[in-house]
């Protein structure tokens, strides 16, 4: 069913992108090295690695944004930054491993039945057996989509059972450390 509001937003976004593309100068990649690097990234960086990149860059930006939030008092700023760091560490670690192992599991169970021996048929349980022409790209997308669904299901549990408690433990550790440092500093000032 067509939703006029969403369609008009979509059309607006599309025409804006078209205008942007029109306004951009043409770029030809002459360097083979650069071209190969771009292709390498597309082939080798998948969802788990992407999660690591986002986590690493989050550590480089988010705590500093929290620490510079002058709208709240210093104590809240520090606790908030500590919790942000804890959340990034917990979320990135769990997110990376969940994605990595889900993809591994899907790879293991999406084998083409024609390539398997008699006792290994279980390795094709996630392979689309009744589709006449399974393309390489289609299978790649199939695995990606399956991986997303399965990791979402796994994360439903790990979010509550690992992420949240780990964030709490790390936050408390970091806050205790901050308080210890603050106490040392203020003691130093009063002694001095």
């Amino acid at each position, binding site marked *: 069913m067509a939703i006029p509001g969403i369609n008009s937003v979509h059309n607006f976004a599309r025409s804006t992108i078209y205008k942007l*593309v029109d306004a951009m100068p043409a*770029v030809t990649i002459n360097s083979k090295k650069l071209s190969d690097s771009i292709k390498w990234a*597309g082939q080798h960086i998948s969802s788990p690695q992407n999660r690591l*990149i986002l986590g690493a*860059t989050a550590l480089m930006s988010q705590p500093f944004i929290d620490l510079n939030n002058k709208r709240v008092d210093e104590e809240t700023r520090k606790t908030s930054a500590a919790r942000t760091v804890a*959340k990034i560490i917990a979320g990135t670690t769990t997110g990376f491993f969940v994605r990595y192992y889900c993809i591994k599991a899907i790879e293991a169970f999406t084998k083409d039945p024609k390539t398997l021996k008699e006792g290994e048929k279980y390795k094709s349980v996630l392979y689309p057996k009744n589709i006449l022409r399974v393309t390489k790209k289609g299978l790649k*997308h*199939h695995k990606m989509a399956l991986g997303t669904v399965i990791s979402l299901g796994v994360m439903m549990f790990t*979010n509550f059972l690992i992420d949240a408690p780990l964030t709490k433990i790390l*936050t408390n550790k970091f806050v205790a450390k901050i308080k210890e440092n603050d106490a040392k500093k203020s003691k130093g000032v009063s002694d001095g």
Partner: protein
Amino acid sequence: MANLTLIDKFYKKFCENPGKMLIHTGVIGWIMSSAAQIFAIAINDKIPKEQKMFMVPQEFADACVNILSFYAVTRTFTSFADKMVKCGKLIQKPTKKWLIKNGYENLLGKTKFDISKIKLPAAQRRSHELFKDGVDLTAATVGGIISCNIITPVIRNLYASKRQKQGIAYLNKKYPKKSQISDKQYHNVSMADFQTRAYSLSSGLKI
């Protein structure tokens, strides 16, 4: 034709474009993650109430802004990069050479033009597809970094600070007799405030 299993139907639905599903699962993922984090803040008895008043809305805003900025920024980045490669505005030298040689020079770079619909030689096609995948991934990563790691924390902090102020004002109104919680407890302290605190906290202060 054999009956299609759930896995076959799944393949049929997502073999062309898994992106349409990634959007929905991404949104669900953010909501779930924020729910877990709000739960973690709520059960953390070492975080004072007034700080929770900042962190709970901060986490809530984190999910909402992440979703919005994902659509507004990350998707724009990926669509833009996708279009740039599709129409040949961003192109590898060998592909460009082939297209010019085969009479596509005038179409190259026009938004209506789509290289993937041209019958390129197999090696060229493969190279172009790999290049497109790489550009898509780079755009999604850069867009993700800008939206999740820069735009979201700035906006969520603005919203959460506002909510904390409202919460503290509510608490002070509800419990006027108890010691007043100030949202300016640790900064912008007036001289009178500073003296009162210094006198009450420091026994060794000689005046």
